[in-house]
């Protein structure tokens, strides 16, 4: 029996076991919205398409399953672009369906027509324009396959209106065969052998772990390697949670806002084992000064990340989990005791610190209190800015799906919709969005989404009444000439929350932080907490842009 493209769409999503779609309707996808009424796929109506794509992304990060986002043509499609790029930079499996004008009108500058395939070509892993209904099921199958395999990433499928109306037999392919796409998972045994030799001979090894460890689910394997060898381990922002934050060998984050001891360890090491990390400039600082004395082992699923920014001695292309398993089978550590002792000294000498008095709440204190209260029970989403770095410093992540943050693109406004997506994926978990007052104001309309679907996310606004991170740069590098960073004109966040039907709370004194957090956790509703924090606190340590990572400002 022939069925319409819209029906094929729904049936294909069922085949992919999709249970939730984050979306926003429009003329081109009316057919799909009509079909959704008769399906058990739950549609979450966001308030802006950027919310839909970030929510799908947060859903994917929290669940490990692909996130799905559905928007209309033209402005609906372009509103997702920031979120598509966010998912692309962080290798997140999301499938974005965009409506498109009928095929006969493509190219005519029709109403609400944009070439979204062209626009997103460089920020998707792959994208498709479906030109015939008979291709629809196969393309959906391929889209999910490509998004979730190899190095994951967003895949966009553009759906012209007539394709959704035309009819075809429904046949969902059991397998995909794309001759140009065959990701390699198994590390080459010779390379693994060579890596093992280096590990045994090293005197001062460091593991530099990245988001690839999270994506590949290699947490257990990494932990086993660290426990077996005692190799000190640092992480990128995206890699946090790859090894428990309170592990004795963990050095915290490296890079621009890394810990001094992580950066010193990397600078002094004689062997750097990069696992699922891509030598991003925020992690490496000036490349010539990055681990200058070390040999590099680089484990990554994407051959193109290897030797992109630095020359690597032992590249191992494949899945981090499988490769670490092989390494763990045979690894013989060297004697690193003197090295570990030296690092422990650095840890004692240069700890992360801040001063909390009785009067003004320090942002770091709020984050420590949240951690102290909820520990492993929560998923933490963040926005971008100072608060994000303080989360990286003071929240000890113990699980790979705990931290949702825009690392590669650094997208302000990611936090709230990502938290909503995570709460949809994990209804029984406590989900916090640790937000900047600036970032929150970019997406605060999504409070309505949280309220409508009873998603009890807790938004902790670290309210410093300014664009803190930019203010910090202006203070340190622009002679305190503050320009375009003041956010004193803002809504009353408590009233704002209440007007949306959420709970609004405020803490202005350190003593109020804990009680307010307790209250937020105890209500089964979305909550916004306005933490009035010190305005001029800075994130330290900090490596000035362009410097080597050991050249840190400590205060």
């Amino acid at each position: 029996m022939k069925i319409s493209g819209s029906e094929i769409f729904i049936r294909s999503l069922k085949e992919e076991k999709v249970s939730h779609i984050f979306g926003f309707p429009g003329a081109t996808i009316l057919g799909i919205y009509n079909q959704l009424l008769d399906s058990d796929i739950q549609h979450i109506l966001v308030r802006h398409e950027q919310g839909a794509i970030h929510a799908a992304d947060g859903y994917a990060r929290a669940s490990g399953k692909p996130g799905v986002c559905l928007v209309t043509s033209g402005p609906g499609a372009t509103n997702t672009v920031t979120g598509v790029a966010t998912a692309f930079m962080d290798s997140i499996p999301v499938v974005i369906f965009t409506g498109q004008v009928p095929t006969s009108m493509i190219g005519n500058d029709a109403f609400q027509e944009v070439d979204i395939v062209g626009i997103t070509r460089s920020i998707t892993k792959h994208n498709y324009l479906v030109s015939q209904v008979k291709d629809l099921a196969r393309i959906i199958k391929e889209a999910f396959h490509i998004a979730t395999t190899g190095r994951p990433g967003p895949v966009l499928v553009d759906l012209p209106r007539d394709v959704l109306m035309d009819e075809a037999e429904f046949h969902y392919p059991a397998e995909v065969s794309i001759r140009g796409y065959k990701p390699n998972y198994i590390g080459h045994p010779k390379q693994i052998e060579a890596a093992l030799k280096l590990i045994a001979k090293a005197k001062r090894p460091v593991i530099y772990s990245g988001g690839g460890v999270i994506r590949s689910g290699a947490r257990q394997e990494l932990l086993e390697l660290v426990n077996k060898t005692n190799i000190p381990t640092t992480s990128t922002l995206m890699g946090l949670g790859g090894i428990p934050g309170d592990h004795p060998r963990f050095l915290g984050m490296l890079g621009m806002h890394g810990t001094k001891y992580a950066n010193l360890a990397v600078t002094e090491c004689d062997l750097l084992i990069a696992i699922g990390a891509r030598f991003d400039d925020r992690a490496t600082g000036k490349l010539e000064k990055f681990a200058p004395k070390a040999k590099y082992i680089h484990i990554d699923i994407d051959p193109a990340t290897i030797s992109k920014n630095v020359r690597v001695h032992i590249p191992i292309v494949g899945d981090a989990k499988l490769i670490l398993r092989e390494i763990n089978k045979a690894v013989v550590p060297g004697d690193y005791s003197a090295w570990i002792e030296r690092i422990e000294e650095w840890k004692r000498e240069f700890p992360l610190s801040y001063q909390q008095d009785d009067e003004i709440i320090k942002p770091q204190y709020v984050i420590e209190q949240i951690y102290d209260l909820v520990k492993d029970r929560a998923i933490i989403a963040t926005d971008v800015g100072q608060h994000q770095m303080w989360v990286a410093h003071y929240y000890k992540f113990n699980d790979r799906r705990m931290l949702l943050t825009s690392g590669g693109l650094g997208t302000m406004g990611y936090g709230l919709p990502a938290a909503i997506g995570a709460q949809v994926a994990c209804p029984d978990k406590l989900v916090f969005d640790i937000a900047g007052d600036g970032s929150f104001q970019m997406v605060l309309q999504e409070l309505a989404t949280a309220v409508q679907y009873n998603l009890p996310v807790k938004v902790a606004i670290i309210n410093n009444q300014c664009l803190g991170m930019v203010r910090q740069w202006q203070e340190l590098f622009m002679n305190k000439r503050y320009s375009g960073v003041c956010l004193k004109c803002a809504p009353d966040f408590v009233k704002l929350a209440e007007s949306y039907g959420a709970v609004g709370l405020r803490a202005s004194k350190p003593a109020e932080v804990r009680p307010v957090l307790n209250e937020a956790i105890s209500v089964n509703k979305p909550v916004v907490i306005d933490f009035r924090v010190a305005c001029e606190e800075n994130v330290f340590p900090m490596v000035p842009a362009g410097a080597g990572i050991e050249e840190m400002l400590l205060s």
Partner: protein
Amino acid sequence: MRHTISVFVENKFGVLARIAGLFSARGFNIDSLSVGETTDPTVSRMTILTSGDDQIIEQVIKQLRRLVDVIKVIDLTQSDYVEREMVLIKVDAPSAHRAEILRICDIFRGKIVDVNPKTMTMEVTGDEGKINALIDLLKPIGIKEIARTGKVAMARGKQDKNLAGKGQGGMPLEEVVSEEKT
């Protein structure tokens, strides 16, 4: 250094834009690009001339391989290969110069494909050096127009049948154990 790269791609619309977009987005050079169908009508073959140091060329090849629509990438520069380009050149051809033009055309094994009272158009095929030499010779006579196809290239010797995979299953390019003493 200059590299000549053969890229086998799905013969679908939009693929050329993906390749061109990759080069421009990542700041790689394209010195010349040509594309056409192969014996398999679902596969097109591109010949791309690009330049850069070894690290850049390695990135160019890896980034090309990363594209889903790219089936196979071969850096011909690493092997023995033939390379040709065709050019159409329209020159001023007053009667005083016609004999000279015909002689040059003959030396370069070209063909005159169009003549009129004022101009002659010749078709010549060759490698880059030959075509540049020809252009240098014709310049003093007066070149009115040039159209070049861009290079096409192919490895010498037996046909490369194996279009399946991109060499990812085996050892990727850089996967050679370092020679350094470790």
